[in-house]
């Protein structure tokens, strides 16, 4: 039986015009479908559970809010060991500088380099604190971001961060970022 099916297949491949499917048999030679249908529909709940990123216009920011003063407490509890008492000491990434970016940036600090304040939420909620990522609530995340922005002189001491105020912050060096102009060919860029 198997040999018969194989013979039919060879005949179909050998004789049938390209693109036509053989009647019955193994189905070999048939055109693949537009879609295969493998995989499962994702429910809205499933998407919402994982869709945690935040866009520069604020899309994705959750409800909630936090103040600079609340953020200082979060910082002391969760951040100080890696980023230092004032965000400048390390041992991990330096977060704070008031030094201007003239010819070269003074490090990759939030105030001295980062082009978008929303990135702070996107990154913190996903990756921080490093040993217990995802532990901060939305209010705590807004608060610690408010504190880091305050340390960088980007918001006043009474600032409140939420889904409206965070994307409205104009980071000082956003316009310094330019698209890649390398194209291959003879010009070195």
């Amino acid at each position, binding site marked *: 039986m198997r040999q018969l099916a194989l013979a039919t297949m060879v005949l179909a491949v050998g004789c049938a015009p390209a693109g036509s499917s053989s009647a019955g048999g193994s189905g070999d030679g048939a055109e*693949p479908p*537009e*879609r*295969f*249908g*493998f*995989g*499962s*529909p*994702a429910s*809205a709940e*499933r*998407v919402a559970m*994982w*869709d*945690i*990123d*935040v*866009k*520069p216009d604020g899309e994705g920011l959750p409800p909630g809010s936090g103040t600079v003063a609340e953020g200082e407490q979060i910082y002391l509890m969760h951040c100080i060991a890696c980023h230092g008492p004032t965000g400048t000491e390390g041992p991990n990434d330096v977060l704070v500088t008031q030094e201007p*970016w*003239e*010819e*070269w*940036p003074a490090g*990759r600090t*939030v105030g001295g*380099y*980062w*082009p*978008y304040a*929303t*990135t702070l939420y*996107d*990154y913190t909620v*996903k*990756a921080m604190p*490093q040993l217990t*990522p995802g532990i901060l609530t939305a209010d705590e995340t807004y608060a610690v971001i408010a504190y880091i922005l305050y340390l960088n002189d980007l918001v006043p001491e009474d600032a409140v961060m939420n889904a409206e105020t965070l994307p409205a912050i104009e980071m000082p060096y956003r316009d*310094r*970022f*330019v*698209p*890649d*102009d*390398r*194209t*291959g*060919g*003879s010009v*070195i*860029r």
Partner: protein
Amino acid sequence: MASNNRSSISRRTWIAASSGVVAAGLIKTKADAVKLVAQEVPTPPDDPTKVPGRFTSEVGVRAPEERPRRLTRSQTLSSSSRTPLQELQGTITPADLHFERHHAGIPDIRAGRHELLVHGMVERPMVFSMADLKRYPSVARTYFLECSGNGGGAYNRERMPVEISPQALDGLLSTSEWVGVPVKTILNEVGADPAATWILAEGADAAVMSRSVPMEKIMDDALLAYGQNGEAIRPEQGYPLRLLLPGWEGNASVKWLRRIEVTDRPTMTRDETSRYTDPLKGGLSRQFSFFMDAKSTITFPAYPYTLPDPGWWEIQGLAWTGRGRITRVDISTDGGRNWTEAELQEPILPKSTVRFRHLWNWDGSESLLISRAVDETGYVQPTVQQLWEARGERTAYHNNQQRVWKVGADGAVTFGLGDLV
């Protein structure tokens, strides 16, 4: 060579001796432990034709004298390790020697539970198991993968290295045969909106590492890869599923891929703003600098090797470009005054490494060896002076300047770019 008078200590004696070492608490550092393991070589028979050999085994091991190792940095959660380029042959990197770069450690993920969510600007948001993905038509392609920070150790005029190996300088480069599903197959399955211009790719590691990728690249040659050099992707490389963007900086090929959001703008994640952007002279910073431009380096002779005597030597190395195929590699043995075309190993695959070879009759005098790659766009691997002129001297990432190796009159090889700047 030390291997010629390798210790004749028997395995049994060694075990006894090493037990003593362990008992005496003499393993104090990782280096001590490595040395101990290195001694664990059974004494070979004087004549292997007179002693029956080993039986078959389920998993092979390297010959006892072959000990290629990745070069690891500090053991921190965000870290990297480098491929021993000077110890490898041909173009393929053994999977267990592929360079590593991760931002919150290597996650422990079981393929049976891993899922890919695809949503956003699509008609049908969907979830795919690994079994689902493997049922789609697959492709296999050989591509290099390189961290955009590779080679950055030889850019700063004041800190030009001398005693640095190809591994330490350029070991964030590896080449594999990758197997997987084109991302466009899956985007067709979910009905991606033709108006979408970007995707966000997100990993399932503890950094939830994520990058925005232009739709043009996704529809061109991006892969959802699950196979590497004949087996499942290793955990360090993104098991069970990674994005693979041929010819682009490695960071954008998100490992442990769990989510693709189809969108119409970049997300501006931390790793495409604060990191992986390239400051330029004039107070600017280049963003979304995805392409890895043409690059090459000699891997032999190179530090820490010493040529024992003058005469015929085969200069070897690797060349690669993210913009297609390497078309030529030139070699200079006199610091760039004269150039000769090297032989390229076939097949020359696009966005893969190419091994080049050049026979050299060394006269025993001090020599500066340089390789210079040319790709199919006509791009010629620049000198460091050309890059300084174009970008300034403090640019990070994408340092593809010509590498220089100095062979001393004593045969000792060091990194020689400092002699030309």
